[in-house]
């Protein structure tokens, strides 16, 4: 579903070539946020229940349990490049004592935080004026981060699993 949401976001952001309507830019931001939200939820649920069609009902049920605020807090932590000492305890770490988070996870996590904030503003703050430049760049960034994250999942399942399960 996340790919359709990103495609929808792009269509909305490119409407009105001369002067974009705020309503379209705001809905574009919202679609882009839900694109990355559902991407993370889907990745986590697939890891929990598997990817087969027969398990879809369980994946979708688990997917309803994810909350935006908890995901944001996890993303702030992972986006910061390392983990809290209490979480890190027992995990392998570098010479400085840090458990380094791969760039692909840091970037996707930070983009999630940024998009969640922009979606809240887009939906509720009428004083904000969204710019098409920012919306288009944000959408492409979210697409790129999801692709890089998925590639990392394929290469190194362990750390990606740790991330989506913590989220």
């Amino acid at each position, binding site marked *: 579903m996340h790919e359709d949401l990103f495609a929808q976001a792009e269509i909305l952001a490119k409407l009105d070539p001369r002067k974009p309507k705020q309503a379209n830019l705001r809905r574009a931001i919202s679609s882009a946020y839900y694109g990355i939200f559902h991407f993370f939820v889907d990745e986590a649920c697939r890891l929990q229940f598997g990817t087969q069609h027969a398990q879809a009902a369980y994946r979708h049920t688990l997917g309803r349990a994810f909350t935006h605020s908890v995901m944001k807090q996890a993303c702030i932590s992972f*986006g910061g*490049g390392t983990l809290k000492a209490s979480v890190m305890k027992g995990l392998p770490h570098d010479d400085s004592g840090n458990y380094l988070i791969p760039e692909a996870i840091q970037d996707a996590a930070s983009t999630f935080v940024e998009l969640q904030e922009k979606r809240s503003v887009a939906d509720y703050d009428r004083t904000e004026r969204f710019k098409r430049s920012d919306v*288009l760049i944000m959408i492409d960034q979210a697409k790129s981060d999801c692709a890089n994250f998925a590639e990392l999942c394929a290469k190194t399942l362990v750390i990606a699993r740790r991330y989506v399960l913590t989220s």
Partner: protein
Amino acid sequence: MIRVEVEDYTDWDGAPALRMLVVLDESVDPEKVSGEAAGQLKSVIRKSLRKHGIELFPYIFFAKPSELAETKEE
């Protein structure tokens, strides 16, 4: 990129943060700016802030001068 502006910000959850505006050159076509490149720039900004001991999350926005002028007119 013409300039970067930074101001204190409180995010939607009430947490202190930073709001950064990256002003693009007017000639830049935003459809040709790759998300990868924008993400790399944001990543460098976040790392630089942390390196300087600033733990506030930076919410980064892009805009062209013409878009900023339109907002002022409204």
